């Protein structure tokens, strides 16, 4: 116990400095805003802000990026409830009962319970992170290259299986990401690969312009292509007053918040699953355990409370693989790994012992950020609903501006703008053809680590592939990955039915 207090004190002494408080505030506010805006996701926003993190201290940078992520979980529910348009993929499930509640004139309590549920789950999630991360980091200290290799293979497989509409397409994207990751000097022997004598390519493809193009600019292109008619501009109702859920609402939803938190946390730890899947699972669990499952879909407050809690605890859990193993489990934490690497810091089991003030600073900042979000949301929610009235015609050029300045600012090299535009076009085309950029980005970030782990393992075993199967952890993880690849039984496949805005399991 004294250890916990000591760690908390250390963490808060980092996260409560004026500078870090400022970046935490900026992060959660931005997250809240992009959460409200349909079309612009948290991954795109984090990609857009990556170049800025180059110029601020590492801890502040991660605090800000983390704030964007969990902040967007608060904002995403607003348009889901009021307009049946999810602001984020993680609030798709909230549309179902949230919008029905709003139609019955209960928009206030629906928004209220999603804010309180988010806060409770976010805080409990951070508590879980605080206790689990050091323990896992301790275990991970014994991991060697074979374990890391197996974890990354499993992670990439899970991403392709859980988080996508089509498994072969997701695997294709992961392979393209891995191939792109090999461009530049081979990390072991320094052989030049795929650089074609071009100086810019010798150091590998620059991550920042690439992700800004794939995740940010491509969104602009997709938004541009849609004809913006007047009825497409989302109009939110003004004058929301009563956000407070009634006593009965609390009684109905307290169990859902608890279950949503636990489900979200457990799903969130898994690489590849993440917050979106967590909301699907939480909703399904809630419906399964409800005494009145028929109420779901007609405006049951449990149907809002459970997924909104799940997505917040899932974000906290999502930090566990990144902070303890140094392996990102989804595209958002992959971008954060990028931010760490920009500062020359490799997160992993040694982060806790070598930079405890940073480790605990990041974790405690999430308590602070959740409190800021609660305080912001309660009085200002009707103000946030007005963000939806910013016309896309103004929003799009501003996103482009951020892309331009950010891509250029990395190396002061206009070639980076061209790289960004090329990946913008790639991102736009792959989205149009039903592929997703997320596995590509994750695989690209993981590639050098995969390669080093594989080759070091084989040096360790003097060339025997048995090393991947006769170590218990490695063997289990790889067997699991293999099982996922060969067995179609374990596929969770969700997709959006065109126009309905409601996901269904197939």
């Amino acid at each position, binding site marked *: 116990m004294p250890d916990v207090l000591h760690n908390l004190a250390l963490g808060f002494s980092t996260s409560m400095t004026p500078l870090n408080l400022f970046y935490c505030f900026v992060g959660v506010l931005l997250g809240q805003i992009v959460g409200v805006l349909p079309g612009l996701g948290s991954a795109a926003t984090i990609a857009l802000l990556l170049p800025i993190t180059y110029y601020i201290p590492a801890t502040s940078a991660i605090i800000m990026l983390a704030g964007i992520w969990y902040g967007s979980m608060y904002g995403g529910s607003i348009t889901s409830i009021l307009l049946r348009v999810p602001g984020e993929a993680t609030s798709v499930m909230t549309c179902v009962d949230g919008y029905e509640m709003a139609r019955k004139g209960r928009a206030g309590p629906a928004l209220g319970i999603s804010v309180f549920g988010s806060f409770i789950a976010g805080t409990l999630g951070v508590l879980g992170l605080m206790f689990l991360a050091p323990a896992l980091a301790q275990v991970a200290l014994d991991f060697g290259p074979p374990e890391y290799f197996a974890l990354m293979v499993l992670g990439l497989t899970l991403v392709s299986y859980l988080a996508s509409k089509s498994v072969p397409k997701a695997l294709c994207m992961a392979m393209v990401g891995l191939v792109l990751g090999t461009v530049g000097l081979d990390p072991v022997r320094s052989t030049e*690969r795929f650089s074609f004598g071009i100086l810019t390519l010798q150091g590998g493809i620059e991550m920042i312009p690439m992700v800004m193009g794939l995740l940010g600019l491509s969104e602009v292109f997709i938004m541009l292509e849609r004809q913006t008619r007047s009825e497409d501009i989302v109009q939110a109702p003004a004058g929301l007053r009563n956000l407070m859920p009634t006593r009965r609402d609390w009684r109905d939803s307290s169990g859902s918040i608890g279950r949503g938190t636990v489900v979200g946390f457990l799903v969130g730890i898994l690489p590849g699953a993440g917050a979106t899947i967590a909301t699907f699972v939480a909703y399904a669990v809630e419906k399964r355990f409800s005494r009145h499952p028929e109420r779901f879909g007609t405006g049951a407050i449990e149907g809002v409370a459970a997924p909104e809690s799940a997505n917040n605890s899932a974000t906290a859990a999502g930090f566990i693989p990144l902070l303890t193993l140094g392996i990102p489990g989804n595209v958002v934490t992959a971008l954060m790994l990028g931010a760490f690497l920009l500062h020359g810091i490799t997160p992993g089991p040694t982060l806790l012992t070598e930079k405890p003030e940073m480790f605990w600073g990041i974790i405690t900042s999430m308590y602070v950020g959740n409190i800021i979000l609660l305080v912001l949301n309660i009085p200002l929610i009707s103000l946030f609903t007005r963000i939806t009235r910013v016309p896309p015609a103004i929003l799009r*050029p501003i996103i482009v501006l951020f892309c331009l300045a950010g891509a250029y600012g990395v190396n002061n090299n206009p070639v980076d703008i061209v790289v960004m535009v090329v990946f913008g076009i790639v991102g736009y085309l792959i989205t149009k053809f039903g592929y997703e950029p997320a596995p590509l980005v994750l695989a690209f970030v993981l590639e050098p680590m995969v390669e080093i782990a594989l080759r070091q393992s084989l040096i360790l075993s003097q060339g025997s592939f048995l090393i991947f199967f006769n170590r218990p952890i490695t063997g289990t993880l790889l067997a699991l990955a293999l099982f996922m690849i060969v067995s179609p039984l374990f596929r969770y496949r969700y997709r959006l039915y065109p126009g309905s805005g409601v996901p269904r399991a197939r």
Partner: protein
Amino acid sequence: MLRRHEAASQSANSPGYRRAGQTNADRLSGSVLFLFALAVIWQASKFPFGTIRAPDSGFLPMSFAITLALMSALIVLRTWLPRTAVTEMPAWGGMGRVVATVMALVVYASAVDWLGYLLSTLLIMLLLLRGIERTGWGMSLLIACISAVASYVLFRQLGVALPQGALPF
């Protein structure tokens, strides 16, 4: 009073699902990926491969590319299977604005070093706002000026070295 928002914009972009044989979007995308994989295999064959026991620089690129070739072939081949959900050929109706934006960005990249950040950003914002988004002249000028100056100040404050250009601003 709540207004029901028709999620028309959502459906415009979601891949549609039709029975095999009706469309060939997956055949096209799968074939492009397959050709890309072949090109990677051809290039990777020039790197030292090593052996399975001691893989060298070419080992992983080759393995990734072979997996990509297999997966993309699967995407193409399964379109002939009965009752497979395949992606509908996307519509290209709004392409004009995308192409125009891409061209503007490329021109920006080639001009920013000698025009300077402020002037070139002002011009591209004006072009995007007025030319592509059809915002009114007054509004376009106002937002272009504010955003160019504000981003310049913000990035300079953060320490990003933005080009001054040939002009004194």
